[in-house]
Each structure stands twice: as C-alpha cells, then as structure tokens.
C-alpha cells in the first residue's frame, strides 16, 4: 500500500460526529490526499452543508489521526468546490445509513434528475411514507412517517 492509500484508508475510517455509524469516506467528505516530495501531507475535506457544525471536529480528528501515525507535517483544508452533494455518498454508506434507521438519500445523479422513486421506510421497507417536517435533528435530515408501520424515521435529504 502506498503512503497515500494508507492515509486515505486511515483518515477515511474516521466516524462522522453526528452520524457515527458512517465514516467520512462513506459520506464523501474526504475528498483528496496528496503528498509532496518533501513529505508534506495535504488533505482536502468538504462540508455537507454550509454551516455544518461537525466540520471543525472532523478537521481536527483527521489531523490528529494522521499525525498520530507518524506524518508530522499535515495540512487539512476545507474545500468548497466542487460542492458536495448526496451523490458523493458511497453505496456502503447508504446501506449503513439504512441499517442505522435513517432512510438514505435517493440516487439522483450529478445532473439532479427529478426524483421518481419513493422514500422507503428503513424499518418495514414500505414505500408508503410521507414527510412530517422538512427539517430534522441535523441539517441533512428531514422527518418522515411510514403509513404502513406507523413509525417515524429520519430521511437523509437529497442535496
């Protein structure tokens, strides 16, 4: 494994502070890792939402973890472009999110095609669900209710 791969795996495995079931690699927050000739490590991360309060914690976690593995010279940068979208979330991330009880964002493609599939209840798989509130416990979630099993559940909004 090259040093870049090693750092990518190590940093990518850091859990998201607000969704600890998922790693920052699952969410697509870890964007790029570079090492220059002098051994300086540059890591790019991207915010999911403009005001995401977890980002600073993530930045510190990444820096600490990579330094702890013997890379003394590390810079973690927050990059805004290209803007994060839920399309950056990995398939593994979507599965973990569902197992955690949160309906994952529906695949939309980077060209943001109109959504045609229903949001499925993460508990009973019913497609008969409706939105209760646009805004939930974090910026990225809405609240829905399942008409089949009656359960209320969070939905990771397509963004």
């Amino acid at each position, binding site marked *: 494994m090259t040093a870049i791969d090693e750092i990518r795996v190590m940093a990518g495995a850091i859990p998201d502070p607000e969704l600890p079931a998922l790693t920052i690699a699952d969410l697509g927050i870890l964007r790029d890792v570079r090492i220059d000739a002098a051994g300086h490590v540059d890591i790019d991360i991207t*915010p999911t*939402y*403009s*005001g*995401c*309060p977890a980002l600073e914690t993530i930045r510190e976690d990444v820096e600490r973890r990579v330094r702890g593995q013997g890379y003394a010279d590390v810079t973690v940068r927050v990059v*805004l*472009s*290209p*803007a*994060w*979208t839920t399309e950056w979330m990995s398939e593994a991330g979507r599965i973990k999110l569902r197992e955690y009880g949160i309906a994952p964002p529906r695949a939309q493609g980077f060209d943001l095609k109109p959504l045609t599939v229903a949001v499925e209840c993460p508990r009973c798989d019913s497609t008969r669900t409706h939105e*209760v*509130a*646009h*805004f*939930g*416990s974090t*910026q990225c979630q809405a*609240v829905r209710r399942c008409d089949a099993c009656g359960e209320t559940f969070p939905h990771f*909004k397509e*963004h």
Partner: protein
Amino acid sequence: MTLVVAGAAAVYTLRIADDCLVLSHRLAQWSSWAPALEDDVALTNIALDLLGQARAMYARTAELDGTGRSEDDYAFMREEREFVNCQLVEQENGDFARTIVRQLLCSTWQLSQWQALTTSTDAQVAAVAARAVKEAAYHRDHATDWTLRLGDGTDESHRRMETALDTLWPFVDELFESDPVTRDVVTSGVGPDPETLRREWDAYVGHVLADATLTVPESSWKPSGGRRGLHTEPFGYMLAEMQHLHRSFPGVTW
C-alpha cells in the same frame, strides 16, 4: 475599530454575508420560542445554513479586500453603520406570521440570487452558491408551506399575515436596487444585476400570496440605505445583544 472594505467585489460579498448573518441571528432568536417543536428545529436549522453561508462569504471578503480579517472581526467588531445588509433582514421577528412573511420575501430573493451566483466569475463565490442554492430552496419551501397554511387558515391567522405583509412590504424594493457596486460586479461577472431578479420574485411571491388568499399590499413608502450603512431602529439593539459577549470578553471561546 473601523473596518473599511476596498473594491466592489469585496463590498458585494460583504453585503451578502451581512444579509445572511443578520437574518441568521434573527431566526436564532426563535430558539426555544417557536410555536411547535418542528418549527423550533426548522427555524434554527435555517439559521445555521445562513450562518454557514455568511461565514463563507466573510472568508471570501477577507481574501478580496486583502486584509485577511477573521469572520469574527466582521461579525463582532463593526459598528452599526459599517453593516451593509438590507433593511428587510434586520426587521424584528414580531409574531410567527411576521417571521414567516419575512422568510418568504427573503428566501425567494436569496434563492434567485444564489442561482445567479452559481455562474459567478469568482470561483469561490460560485462554489458557495452551488451549496447554498439547495439550502435556500428548502428555506423557500418552508416559508411557502406556512404562508399557505396561515394565509388560508383562520380569520386570526389571515389577519396576522395581512398585517405582517403591510409591515414588511415597503422593505422589498431595496433588495432589487442597483448602485455603483452592483454595476461593477455585473461588468466583472461576479454577480447579477439585482433588477433582473425582480420578475421571477414577483411571479413566485405573487402566486403564493394569491393561493394563500392574501393581498399584495400597495406601498408608496420605500425605505432604503442599508447598503450604505443606514439601518432601522431595531438593528442597533440586535447588534448590541449579538456583539456584547465577544467585546466584553475578548478572545473568549466555548
């Protein structure tokens, strides 16, 4: 401490940052006071989005004016006359109806503005806009839903919405004003001509108000001056509360 911002692009990004920060602070004042838990969560989530947008635009302003000032310098160390937000965002929350009307008027305009800014020649501004445009769409949806429910609701909710519209409508014109700064950013391709956003705004807001059985007010009074640092009375009180902790305890952290 006097902060002078040089260059049209820097002034322009500062205006957007101030709009977002001031509206964010107003919405944050609803925390623990909203009529239902869902809306307490919604209003503070919207406030958080706006705060994030403000921070990104303050950071860009600091790069453009070459001073490298911190976000805190802009937010906490400027006097009232140095803020260049429009006057609509600084208006008091009032009752829930007034906050919703302010949200409808502001978020409809902000959504159009962010959409236009996604093609800004300033790559940083375009990147912020690509994120913000999706957030603003949710903000507008939220305000639209509530406008329909309250406008076409009970006699009391309808009356309160009409009162709120009459109170806030005069501040709309300022959103679409042009001046040397906006003309400069149009030339450089950094931002849109504010006047070009008007037609879409009129169409959307007009449509929502009609569906909500509300009447578009007639107004002859057109206050203005926020972009030149002239603000209405409630703003000073808001700033005093917002800035006092940072100024009383310099360098304080959580």
